[in-house]
């Protein structure tokens, strides 16, 4: 069942278009990584899903409803980002007490245990927390709300590595205990990849790729072999990156564009190797001809 359906979603601001033609369908009870370069439109997309921003055109449905100004979707959705603000006068304990009043599945006990684990006193004021502590508190708030749609926008920003590792595990354990849809936007794909089911790659305001993690990773491959052989083999193929040295060529290409058997590759002296998901994202989103080396030549 789809929890989210967006069609040709667009959001235009005065001097730039944050989203255009974004179409996607997201099934419920999955952990999905929302990946994209800076300014790709991830946060705008997530804010539309949470009902905070009204799209310029196109349709967006969450729980089969338009999320904008909708109390049902608001009660079942939580968006955690670094702009999340609570009153300066409230202690963490008071903020948690209020959360319990608003979210029906609230896990107050778990919140207290997690705060104790990370060493955040209940009497602290939200505004006085350090950047990493604030991110930790906000993420705990998001986890214990147990909303059917939990959106985390760069939830680990500012946290140290030990806490990040702990909280990826906390997300996974919470997901197993109480399955729900998690959308997690992050620039740290490599460190969260193992807990994801799918990757949604946003580039330039629309969806560039959406697939299960392993399929996503396998869409590009690296070929390494004699330059002349590879030049003929890849004559009419899209090459995402290429490096030549001493008669050998390294080329990143789409796996599906390669219709040649493993044996034939081997006899031609070509080796095939996989890329990491982060590398796949990087190559897919790199603008044509935009090679940092070119600026130094």
């Amino acid at each position, binding site marked *: 069942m789809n929890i989210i359906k967006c069609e040709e979603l667009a959001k235009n601001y005065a001097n730039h278009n944050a989203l255009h033609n974004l179409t996607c369908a997201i099934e419920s009870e999955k952990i999905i990584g929302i990946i994209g370069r800076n300014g790709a439109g991830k946060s705008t997309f997530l804010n539309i899903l949470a009902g905070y921003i009204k799209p310029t055109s196109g349709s967006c449905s969450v729980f089969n409803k338009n999320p904008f100004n909708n109390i049902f979707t608001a009660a079942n959705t939580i968006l955690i980002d670094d702009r999340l603000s609570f009153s300066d006068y409230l202690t963490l304990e008071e903020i948690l007490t209020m959360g319990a009043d608003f979210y029906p599945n609230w896990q107050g006990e778990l919140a207290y245990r997690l705060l104790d684990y990370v060493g955040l006193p209940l009497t602290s004021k939200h505004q006085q927390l350090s950047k990493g502590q604030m991110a930790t508190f906000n993420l705990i708030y998001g986890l214990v709300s147990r909303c059917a749609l939990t959106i985390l926008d760069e939830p680990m920003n500012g946290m140290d590595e030990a806490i990040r590792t702990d909280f990826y595990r906390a997300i996974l354990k919470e997901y197993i205990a109480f399955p729900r849809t998690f959308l997690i936007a992050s620039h740290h794909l490599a460190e969260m990849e193992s807990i994801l*089911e799918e990757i949604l790659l946003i580039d330039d305001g629309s969806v560039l790729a959406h697939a299960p993690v*392993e399929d996503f990773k396998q869409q590009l491959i690296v070929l390494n072999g004699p330059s002349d052989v590879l030049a003929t083999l890849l004559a009419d193929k899209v090459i995402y990156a290429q490096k030549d040295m001493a008669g050998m060529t390294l080329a990143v290409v789409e796996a599906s564009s390669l219709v040649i058997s493993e044996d034939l590759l081997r006899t031609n002296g070509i080796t095939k190797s996989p890329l990491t998901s982060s590398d796949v994202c990087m190559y897919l989103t790199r603008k044509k001809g935009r090679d940092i080396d070119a600026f130094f030549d």
Partner: protein
Amino acid sequence: MYVNLDSATPIYIQIAEWLQHEIVADRLQTDEKVYSQYQLAELFNINPATAGKGLTILFEEQLLYKKRGLGMFVTIDAKERILTKRRNETLTKMAQEIVIEAKRLLVSDEELLILIRQTQEGLK
């Protein structure tokens, strides 16, 4: 046991291989219940869907069978099947690689056989 996230081998295949390893080592025996996808997810810190894919591989190879509502169990001849498969595929492939590498290093056939025998002696 950790899954190797940097490995070229997909995580779900690593899970399938680990389960086969457990069967071969008799830590999972005939008709014994195997870990659920959620247990595997917790154990290896991976998404339950990924763990489920690993279980599906074993189910499709008939190394596991399903009992409705109870989970997956080890098939009666699972260990034998895994051993046969490894002999036919993995070991043959490794032997090929050794022979190719020996050729590259100008090691004669006799020398290679002697090396294998010596290695066997050393591991006894």
